[in-house]
């Protein structure tokens, strides 16, 4: 198991390095010139342009720029934003925290409710409840998040006035202690709902078909033949086996925890990575873009690593296969 873990970690590190290089190159292949964006939309003297290019190292050949980027990255330095002149790392990390604050609880909620729904649906396979739950998850899966977000804003913020339309806290009366938490939750509710609905649908669809398949396995017959209640059969025998493919989907979802909320964040003006990302694209802010790509890639790699380990924890057969391979 330890050798397996080591091999997985080494593989993850190699992936991150490769992604860093690709992310660096992709942003440089994007159309548009950062100097134009920096200098502004007026005819600047060529001396000024070349001075700016030199300041940011843009006059160096591409391999040299890449090499410098990797050396700096190893020191935790992802460069400085062309736009705000702030260090990319702290800029991105600060925004990433806000994004995670929205995404992680939503993803956990979506995973738990999605699996619970799937078990209930599988238990009433082919009956009303099953069809209803399937329909709900199909709708949740199909609704575009920007549309749902705006509808929610219209209903709950504009018409009913129950919840704020945007932001993460009230600017006029942020409150303190419990009041601040409640204020946060009021802002959190609508965007979190949008994200939860989508990922819940994704999880529920996969989990339901997996649970239905497990219900027809022979070992379920054995569990019933022992005299176990249907409840015990479902939650103890079917669920644990049915979870194995669902873990892949949930892990995959968590891999998108940094970049999966860009649209939602835009609709609700949630001050996360989404806004930074959109601004960085609009301004050809290469260092910030590379930083976001890199962080998002690390999130995916970490999520995959966690998925692999979770797999081994849930399915003893994977453990054996891994030990043999490692």
């Amino acid at each position, binding site marked *: 198991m330890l050798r397996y873990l080591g091999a997985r970690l080494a593989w993850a590190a190699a992936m991150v390095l490769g992604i860093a290089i690709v992310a660096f190159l992709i942003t440089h292949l994007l159309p548009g010139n950062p100097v134009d964006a920096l200098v502004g939309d007026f005819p600047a003297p060529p001396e000024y342009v070349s001075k700016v290019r030199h300041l940011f190292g843009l006059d160096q050949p591409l391999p040299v720029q890449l090499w410098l980027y990797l050396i700096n990255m190893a020191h935790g330095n992802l460069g400085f934003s062309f736009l705000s002149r702030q260090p990319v790392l702290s800029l991105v990390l600060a925004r990433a925290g806000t994004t995670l604050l929205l995404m992680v609880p939503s993803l956990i909620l979506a995973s738990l409710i999605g699996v619970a729904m799937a078990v209930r649906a599988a238990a009433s396979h*082919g009956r009303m409840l099953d069809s209803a739950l399937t329909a709900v998850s199909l709708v949740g899966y199909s609704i575009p998040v920007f549309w749902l977000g705006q509808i929610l804003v219209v209903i709950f913020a504009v018409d009913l006035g129950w919840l704020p339309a945007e932001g993460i806290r009230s600017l006029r009366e942020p409150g303190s202690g419990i009041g601040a938490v409640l204020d946060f939750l009021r802002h959190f509710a609508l965007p979190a709902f949008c994200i939860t609905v989508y990922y819940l649908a994704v999880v529920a669809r996969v989990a339901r078909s997996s649970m239905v398949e497990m219900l027809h*396995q*022979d*070992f379920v*017959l*054995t*569990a*019933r*033949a*022992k*005299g*176990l*209640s*249907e409840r*015990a059969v479902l939650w*103890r*025998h079917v669920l*644990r*086996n049915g979870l*194995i493919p669902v873990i892949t989907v949930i892990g995959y979802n968590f891999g998108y925890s940094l970049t999966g909320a860009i649209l939602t964040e835009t609709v609700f003006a949630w001050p996360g990575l989404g806004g930074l990302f959109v601004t960085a694209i609009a301004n050809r802010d290469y260092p910030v873009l590379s930083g976001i790509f890199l962080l998002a890639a690390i999130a995916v790699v970490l999520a995959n690593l966690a998925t692999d380990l979770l797999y081994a924890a*849930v*399915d*003893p*057969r994977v453990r*054996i296969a891994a030990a043999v391979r490692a």
Partner: protein
Amino acid sequence: MTGAAGGGAILEVHALHVTYESAGRTVHAVQDASLSVAEGEAVGIAGESGCGKSTLARVLLGLVPARIAQIRNGRIAIGGVDVTGFAGRDWERVRGQPVAIVFQDPLSFLNPVMRVGDQIGEAVRRHDPAATVPARSAELVDLVRLPRSALRRYPHELSGGMRQRVMLAMALGCRPRLLVADEPTTALDATTEAEILTLLRELRRELGMAMLLISHDLGVLRWNCDRIYIMYAGHTVESGATAEVLSHPAHPYTRGLAAAARLARLPDGHFAMIGGDVPRLERPARLCPFLSRCDAAMARCHEAMPPASPAGANGHRARCWLVAPAHREAI
């Protein structure tokens, strides 16, 4: 056809007719099956694959979903309780205790992600609330001659024979009065098969429980059952003391089965076998279901279904016009 045993019958099945839906078709898997098992008795059911043996075994404990299988007629009683009309949670009253079941393929019938000890412990906790689970589980693996370390293993880490012992330990953990064994050794190699059958015999002697052993292998049944039922196309066609039925088979189907089991070489050098196939079961038979393959068929067979009639000593009965009183009178 009721069994020889009087008094305490742990299982009684009378004129059972079961259909199930398969790919939009109705299959009359069991059409007219009657059998009984007395407390402590070992009873066998023999027949080719597809004759309804396994369906019968599963219907006994309500293990075929009601949406799929339906009892059209007849009666099942377990320990004197009529379970024919059972639905949903009712079945939990008979499953495991008083009737436990072991299945054919011990790998697919064990939960792959649960330790053996947990799967056995579950049965103990459900049916033996007074027992300390770890102690009783250890006792159970001793009973089926498994090392105690097996409790910490997962099913895929064990051999086929060990898995079947786990299935047995789990069934015994329910403290059943009747053990239904549905082709328990079919998936095992010959040596392991012999070990498991020996173990079954010893366990029955130690625990005094009744057994319903289902097999297509007459050799297996001959050495392990007091009485035997021969099943064909959903009908119990012959029954009686095992030695009597197998040495003096009355029904032409049983004769064919016995000959095939002995791999008897015919004078022309071929192996004995029954020609033709088990009939399709899309509608219930009005005549003897074996008619199309029978080489002893006579005019009478084309007129009506033969009744179960005495065919020899020790409660030997067969459902065939050859032994029916009406036929004897005619001769």
